[in-house]
């Protein structure tokens, strides 16, 4: 899978050779993982953990890297699809902090939505974020995702219970807008 985004970025499905020290460093950077819905934040993430995570993307599911055109790996999407119900979940991390605040998610996620709805036969994409992740909320609003619900005090992060917000995009909604 290879998707050209624009004159800045491209997306490609990751393979085992893409599990680099750089990617590993993101997942052990507390600032990067602060808003990710991961399990034990105090556990050191190993290369083996990342390989297992990559391998969990089977049957119409992909771990998709975000790259600059010169090949710099800056982040990932996790696209996991249930082919029976044609629903996919989508998560994102921008690991390279030099690219925070540069609308990378808005630009690249549009391409994934186009691909999922027009090429991959997906009907619905679900996603979400912590209520504390204000930039992510802005991105969902800007891209006109539907807020499906608020899971109250659904996560315990930094000694606080926080809400989790679910969003979704339907094929018809996306194609009507684009």
């Amino acid at each position, binding site marked *: 899978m290879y998707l050209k985004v624009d004159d800045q970025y491209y997306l490609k499905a990751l393979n085992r050779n893409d599990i680099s020290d750089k990617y590993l460093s993101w997942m052990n950077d507390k600032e990067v993982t602060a808003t990710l819905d991961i399990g034990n934040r105090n556990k050191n993430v190993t290369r083996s953990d990342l390989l297992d995570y990559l391998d969990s993307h089977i049957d119409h599911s992909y771990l998709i890297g975000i790259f600059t055109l010169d090949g710099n790996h800056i982040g990932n999407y996790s696209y996991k699809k249930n082919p029976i119900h044609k629903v996919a979940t989508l998560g994102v991390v921008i690991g390279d902090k030099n690219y925070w*605040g540069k609308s990378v998610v808005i630009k690249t996620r549009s391409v994934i939505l186009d691909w999922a709805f027009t090429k991959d036969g997906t009907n619905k994409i679900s996603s979400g974020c912590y*209520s504390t992740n*204000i*930039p992510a*909320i*802005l991105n969902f*609003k800007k891209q*006109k995702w539907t807020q499906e619900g608020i899971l109250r005090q659904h996560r315990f992060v930094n000694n606080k219970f926080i809400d989790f917000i679910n969003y979704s995009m339907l094929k018809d909604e996306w194609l009507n807008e684009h």
Partner: protein
Amino acid sequence: MSTNISIELVSKSLNIRSELIKDDTTIETCSFWDSIGHLMLIQNIEELIGRKLDTLEMLEISSVNDVKKIMKENGFG
């Protein structure tokens, strides 16, 4: 007066001139309304009203009119 406060808040947060901002300016229509600007806006509102916004309040903010409503509800208007 509340409109002015709201527009000034948005202007300061998004780092754009207040003349470019109207009451009906929204997240979707304003290309300058980016994720970092939105984070700044929430923080600036919270600083001014002296408390954290709850999730529902925070999720309501999609336009200058929404900022105006929040400010009014918190005694700024």
